[in-house]
């Protein structure tokens, strides 16, 4: 459940009650796409009674609503739905600790930028020919600015380098820290002894560029974490326990005990496994099985945590709680499967493993060489430090994050959230794709065949279906709303659990109910007076599923289906899409299939949505989940795509490959450029001026090269759109 923030509200324009207190609840609204949506939400919502204000965060696709305590999450979601936006309450305080890292980096970046500008100002004067007392004064001023700036802005690198050294490892931050500290130390010595060159600006500039890369990396991780974290929290986090005295009280999921009797209201999610003692209802088990059809349950049936009770309240005796539930078991499988992924070494680290020793030995050789050649300790040291600075991986620090941020930004615009940079790197390497069926290749929700309904029937059906939360009714509402049907005004609507909806329209009895015959397919019967019509529901294939599979195979990726669904349903889909399929696979079998692929040396991409796909998603080399997937699956996946189309899956692979191409180019450019300056450094010709120019130019080239990616998703998407129209 959401934890609302209490605000003392002094101003009010629409407050209905006089309590003077307001709650702020945050919602994720993926449908915010343009300025019009912002305007609509912020203008229309406060007109509702009890809502004081709404504020949209466009980048995070989030709305903060300040409202009366009388309204609960459900009312607010309904209010958003009424103006045309699907919303999901945000589970946790969004201003969590994760954004703290980004802020820290941004502050460090600001301080480094300030230091760099001012020291550069003084350095330019020195380079322009300031001499004697003026030069000494300027060097002292530079030192005065640089020392605190380096101490503050360098912290992220010093900390990380220290951690690495403590565990006898090396990373990119070790050469950076050594370079910065040596350059600063030498510069202080030069300043104190009235020397000619001080390298303060190089040290600070190095920090500035590297921090820019780090900040970009953090921004990217935060952006997607906002999107994904927001979708969490659909599982039951607490339950109403019925005490011996008959009173109910809310108990958190982790404090529930087996044997307790709980009351599960309609619309509530189960927080533990249990057996129904009393009541009859329909449940939505899609979180566990990925199956969209509601399941009828009665006294004596077992319910699993995560199942959502749809129609009537149930009394449930808990059998397994906390760590023992079926859900927790799958979570444990996922956790173990995910371990292998944490061993993945990112390309920047692989590069630095090769690069750092080379840089250090080069600098050491320069020092030794000049000592042998008879130069003094001081001169040899100056040259060694010049080598360190000139070869310092400043552009390398930017090479990976700039390319990945630009690419993920482009993908975000096309409806795909990539969780972090390592996900893009792994996506680029995949060569086999495995798809779940229900909810992944298909829409995952039953949609009616409305072609056989006349206008009147459509209006009545919408008028009735609006009143229900049953998945069939909701599918009916969506399809009819998309067909711009206006609902008929129906009065006296009543819903009977397990039976259907009934009401009155123009003096006739109308009903939407369970059909009398035809048990195996999803259908419901629409009755208007004496006339009756059967509406058949099917879980439709995503419109561009076939085009996407074809596109993947053009990229050399063989696709197959791995589903937990019935054999015949899976075979139908496999035949329609022309790819091999394996049906009736348990979560364990799915995981084994993925492991088998990996054992054969393939790098599999898993695309799935159900919780039963969770372990497979975690084990795959890379994984993608649709936005409608279970929370756990979205967490396990590397990327999440939103909307009706499957195209973002193919797009993700294409763009990821292009990104890695650009990253390699960036490395080549950065290293090549610096290599040109190394001979100058080795022979002692590098002045602070040359170091500064080399550093900024190579960084600019790398950033420019990365920006070429901003069009990548666009052009890839267009060829895809072309294919869709042909298909």
């Amino acid at each position, binding site marked *: 459940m959401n934890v609302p923030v209490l605000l003392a509200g002094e101003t009010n324009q629409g407050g209905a009650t006089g309590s003077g207190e307001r709650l702020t609840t945050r919602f994720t609204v993926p449908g915010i796409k*343009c*300025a019009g949506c*912002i*305007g609509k939400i912020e203008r229309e919502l406060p007109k509702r009674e009890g809502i004081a204000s709404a504020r949209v*965060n466009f*980048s995070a696709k989030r709305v903060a609503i300040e409202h009366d305590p009388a309204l609960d999450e459900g009312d607010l979601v309904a209010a958003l739905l009424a103006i045309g936006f699907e919303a999901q309450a945000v589970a946790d305080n969004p201003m969590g600790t994760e954004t703290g890292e980004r802020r820290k980096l941004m502050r460090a970046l*600001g301080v480094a930028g300030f230091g760099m500008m001012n020291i550069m100002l003084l350095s330019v004067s020195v380079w322009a020919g300031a001499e004697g007392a003026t030069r000494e004064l300027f060097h002292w001023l530079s030192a005065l600015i640089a020392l605190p700036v380096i101490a503050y802005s360098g912290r992220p690198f010093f900390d990380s380098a220290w951690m690495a050294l403590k565990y006898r490892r090396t990373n990119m931050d070790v050469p950076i820290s050594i370079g910065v500290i040596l350059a600063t130390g030498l510069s202080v010595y030069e300043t104190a002894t009235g020397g000619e060159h001080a390298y303060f600006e190089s040290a600070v500039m190095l920090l500035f560029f590297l921090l820019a890369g780090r900040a970009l990396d953090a921004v990217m991780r935060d952006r997607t974490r906002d999107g994904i974290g927001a979708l969490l929290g659909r599982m039951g986090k607490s339950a109403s326990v019925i005490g011996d005295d008959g009173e109910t009280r809310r108990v958190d999921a982790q404090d529930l005990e087996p044997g307790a009797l709980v009351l599960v209201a309609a619309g509530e999610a189960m927080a533990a496994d249990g057996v129904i003692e009393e009541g009859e209802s329909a449940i939505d088990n899609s979180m566990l099985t990925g199956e969209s059809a509601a399941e009828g349950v009665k006294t004596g049936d077992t319910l699993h945590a995560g199942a959502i009770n749809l129609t009537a309240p149930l009394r449930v005796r808990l059998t397994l709680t906390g760590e023992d539930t079926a859900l927790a078991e799958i979570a444990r499988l996922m956790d173990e499967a995910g371990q292998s992924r944490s061993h993945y070494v990112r390309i920047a680290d692989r590069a630095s493993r090769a690069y750092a020793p080379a840089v250090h030995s080069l600098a050491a050789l320069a020092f030794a060489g000049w000592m042998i050649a008879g130069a003094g300790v001081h001169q040899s040291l100056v040259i060694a430090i010049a080598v360190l600075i000139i070869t310092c991986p400043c552009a390398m620090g930017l090479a990976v994050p700039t390319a990945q941020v630009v690419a993920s930004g482009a993908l975000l615009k096309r409806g795909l959230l990539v969780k972090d940079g390592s996900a893009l790197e792994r996506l680029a390497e995949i060569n086999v794709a495995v798809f779940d069926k229900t909810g992944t290749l298909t829409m995952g929700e039953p949609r009616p065949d409305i072609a056989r309904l006349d206008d009147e029937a459509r209006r009545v059906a919408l008028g009735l279906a609006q009143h229900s939360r049953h998945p069939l009714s909701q599918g009916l509402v969506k399809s009819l709303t998309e067909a711009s049907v206006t609902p008929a005004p129906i009065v006296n609507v009543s819903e009977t659990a397990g039976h259907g909806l009934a009401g009155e329209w123009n003096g006739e009895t109308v009903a939407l109910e369970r059909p009398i015959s035809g048990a195996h397919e999803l259908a419901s019967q629409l009755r208007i007076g004496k006339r009756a019509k059967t509406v058949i529901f099917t879980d439709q294939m995503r419109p561009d599923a076939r085009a996407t599979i074809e596109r993947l195979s053009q990229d050399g990726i063989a696709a197959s289906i791995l589903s937990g669904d019935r054999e015949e349903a899976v075979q139908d889909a496999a035949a329609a899409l022309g790819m091999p399929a394996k049906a009736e696979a348990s979560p364990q079998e799915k995981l084994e299939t993925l492991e088998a692929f990996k054992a054969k040396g393939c790098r599999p991409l898993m695309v799935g949505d159900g919780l039963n796909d969770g372990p497979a998603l975690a084990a795959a080399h890379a994984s993608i989940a649709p936005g409608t997937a279970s929370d756990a699956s979205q967490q396990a996946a590397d990327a999440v795509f939103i909307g009706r189309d499957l195209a973002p899956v193919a797009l993700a692979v294409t763009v990821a490959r292009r990104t890695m191409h650009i990253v390699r180019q960036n490395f080549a450019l950065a290293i090549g450029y610096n290599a040109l300056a190394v001979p100058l450094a080795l022979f002692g010709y590098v002045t602070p001026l040359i170091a500064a120019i080399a550093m900024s130019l190579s960084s600019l080239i790398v950033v420019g090269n990365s920006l070429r990616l901003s069009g990548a998703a666009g052009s890839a998407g267009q060829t895809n759109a072309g294919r869709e129209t042909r298909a």
Partner: protein
Amino acid sequence: MTGLAFLIPIALGMGALGLVAFLWAIKSGQYEDMEGSANRILIDDEEDDAP
């Protein structure tokens, strides 16, 4: 040379002012929703709609 005694503190002061402004901007959430701000200028104010 005496000019420097004024100019350098002024230059540093201006730089520091910029830094303070930047830190304030981070703190007050100016960087939280950059795309939103870009889009907001396109919203028409509907005066007659106001309550």
